[in-house]
């Protein structure tokens, strides 16, 4: 089975580096499944889990604020933050979720609303990944 290199990089460090068979991400335009020898592609990503399949094993990474660069033999995901399921602080994510929900309920001006919405998305994303 052919494979390719997958890297996930944040401003702080390299979070993930493995040889994989398939990567599935959620781009701004919709879900993408990437297999080896994919056409070179660049697209921003939504706040969503990234799934990486390798040797029958599945890794899930919570990615926020990133984009993906696909080359023939390599996939690089650059993100503002990215966590593997085991690194996620569930309590913190839970707290963030409640805070965001409260803010959304309180109805303030538009900027705060957008911000709370994004925060909620991030928290939900983390919780989803940690539960997998």
């Amino acid at each position, binding site marked *: 089975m052919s494979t390719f290199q997958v890297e996930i*990089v*944040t*401003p*702080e*460090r*390299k979070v993930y580096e493995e040889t994989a068979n398939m990567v599935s991400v959620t*781009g*701004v*335009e919709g879900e993408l499944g990437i297999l080896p020898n994919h*056409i*070179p*592609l*660049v*697209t*921003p990503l939504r706040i969503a889990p990234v799934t990486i399949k390798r040797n029958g094993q599945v890794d899930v990474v919570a990615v926020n*604020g990133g*984009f993906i*660069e696909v*080359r*023939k033999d390599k996939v*690089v995901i*650059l993100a*503002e*933050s990215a966590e593997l399921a085991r690194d996620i602080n569930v309590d913190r994510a839970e707290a963030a979720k409640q805070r965001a929900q409260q803010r959304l309920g309180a109805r303030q001006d538009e900027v705060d609303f957008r911000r709370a919405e994004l925060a909620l998305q991030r928290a939900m994303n983390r919780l989803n990944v940690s539960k997998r």
Partner: protein
Amino acid sequence: MAKGMRDIKREIKSKQNMKQITKAMEMVAASKLRRAQEAATQSRPYADKLKEVVASIAAGTKDVKHPMLESRPIKKTGYLVITSDRGLAGGYNANVLRKVTQTIKEKHKSADEYALFVIGRKGRDYFKRRNMPIIEEVIGLSDSPQFADIKSVASAAVKMFSEGAYDELYLVYNKFVNAITQIPSEIRLLPLEEISGGTSVASYEYEPSPEGVLEVLLPKYAETLIYSAVLDGKASEFGARMTAMGSATKNATKMINQLTLTYNRARQAAITQEITEIVAGANAQS
């Protein structure tokens, strides 16, 4: 016992305490410097990759239009100044702040022509005292700053540029060269200069479109540049502190030696005097 002796002894003691403190601070700074340098190295792949992708978009598509790439006539200038929260770092803060003040004095006539973003308590206090317009400030940054810590100030600085609040943005910080050398530098961050290095590795597909991708990437790119400047600034801070505390320790050692010498002289003089007195007393009796 001569009266001066006790004073000298007290002085030696206090210098010794001071030396202990500066020595400890030097060592702490040294270990933090190593960590800061590591963080700076680890942040490099992200920035490099981002630059590569942005450059390849710019090279691939000839006429990309984006407000962040366009030079406008300059009416107002933004400065993002990176200082430290704590002092005792030699000329670290003073150098940067002098540079900013000088530039502002040369280029602007009134306070309406510039705006400041400040990272670090020292810088904030300095500008506040002088009643200069601070738009946003970040203080209490940890020693190994996370991207999330400076995200708000970075994105505010970038956003206000694209909204047209000012027409150029400068980054002023201490560039880290090595532990003893830090150069206060001023970099024009926005509008982004011609992103060169157009080595188009592969012709990419862009989703939704090259412009759409650029729209997302350029602000990220600028924020990343700010983040790496912050990391560089941190490394410089610890380097400067290490050097400053190192020379303070050296000076303390020198002073202690000098004082010890004086003390011993005084002690010897006191003993000699005592002997002379005893001998004189004995002579007088016989």
